[in-house]
């Protein structure tokens, strides 16, 4: 009996990972369709209440409503006050 060559096992392992990925993405696709329903629900609420921002982070007013509060936030709370909130660490100036 000839021994099974290592390349076979490697390709088998690689194929199994791809298969696992395929199964994962099938499930992710189902979850995305569930999320679509959530988003359409959110769209209705946004439209009815005329909301402009996501309630992701409410640590400061300019992180709660980045779209409609002042564009320049540094020094907004206190003269010379640095913008110190974690979620604003990576905020870009909106042009």
């Amino acid at each position, binding site marked *: 009996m000839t021994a099974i060559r*290592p390349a076979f096992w490697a390709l088998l392992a690689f194929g199994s990972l791809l298969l696992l990925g395929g199964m994962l993405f099938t499930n992710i696709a189902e979850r995305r369709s569930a999320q679509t329903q959530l988003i359409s629900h959110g769209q209705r609420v*946004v439209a009815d209440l005329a909301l402009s921002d996501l309630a992701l982070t409410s640590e400061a007013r300019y992180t709660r409503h980045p779209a409609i509060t002042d564009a320049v936030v540094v020094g*907004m709370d206190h003269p010379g006050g640095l913008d110190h909130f*974690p979620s604003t660490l990576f905020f870009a100036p909106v042009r």
Partner: protein
Amino acid sequence: MDAPYIGRLLNILDYALSSLRRKLLKNFGVFTVFSVVIFLFSSFQLTSRALTEIARQTLTTAPDITVQQMSAGRQSSIPLAAKEQLAAIFGIKKIDARIWGYYFDESNGANYTVIGMDTMPDHAPGSPWPGLSEGRLPTAGETGKAVISAEMRRQLQLGERKFFSLFRPDLSLASFETVGIFSKDSDLVTADLILMTMGDARNLFAIPDGLATDLLVQVGNPLEIDTITGKIRDKLAGVRVITRAQIQKTYEVVFSWRSGLGTICLLTALVSFVILAWDKASGLSQSELREVGILKILGWQTGDIMLLRFFESATVALFAFLTGWLLAWVHVGYFAGALFRPIFLGWSVLRPDLAMVPPLVFSDVLLVFSISVLPYLCATAVPAWRAAVVRADSVL
């Protein structure tokens, strides 16, 4: 491509895999660290992609135009008389005034967003508004009624009680009865919201009659939004006019910037890993040199040995890429990016129940592949060449 050529490649691959197995501990270490680096990169990128997507889709129904009064570079209240001035602009369908603001709850450190509206959403008579999980909306003319989120009810420690109080600016208490609870499904936009009538909001924030926070303009034809925006600016001095497109663009910029900077931070990890890979690959032991020497005596060419080393690196890199990338999808899709949530959500006390399912975008995959696998293959190529050109008689 003929069969002998493929057979030769398979033979070299076999040898490369056996070689990897002989140095199992070292290669497993490289694989683990590489997988973790790719996992971190991909997770950050997927989290950012998912949030951008959620913002883009959810805010497609945001107000057409929001008009705010600016004074000395900051937002101030806008006179309700501005509504009459704008009503004359052709193409405007509807203008609603609104009062909204923030309320900081000192007892728990939470920031609430208070919205006061006179026109409550339309819904079929007899059936509740779909944005609520229980109760009803306040009706026009009612006082002291509010709708809050389930998370807020928990933070306010209301339990089964319906009444809560908020401080006015003069520190007198304004009492509210909870008549409705926002649905969990809309948590992403209502997690910190207190909805009440405009009169109640005016009373809570002590805003005089005749003033509002902003005006919401609905336009008949979406193609005319930019033209109408210009007309509004001409009619009202010192106003800021924000369109829906600008709102959506803000979120794209915010998340892509965060993602970009996060990626730059994570590049340090990648560079460290590439240095490690270079070091591991270039530090040839005596036994590895002997191996190259024996292979050359057996008739292997420099190109064959280069190919052997490439197969070794590619096997580790591809397995690490797939493992790290798939784990990132599990992390973001099933655990809502738990590791990076603190960066994206900050120190908020009220946090929405967030489910993130990012889309599969080819450019994202290509980006992660390009900044992880390709540098690794390059880092191992030069040491592989240096090992392959060793003269057999100098090492045996």
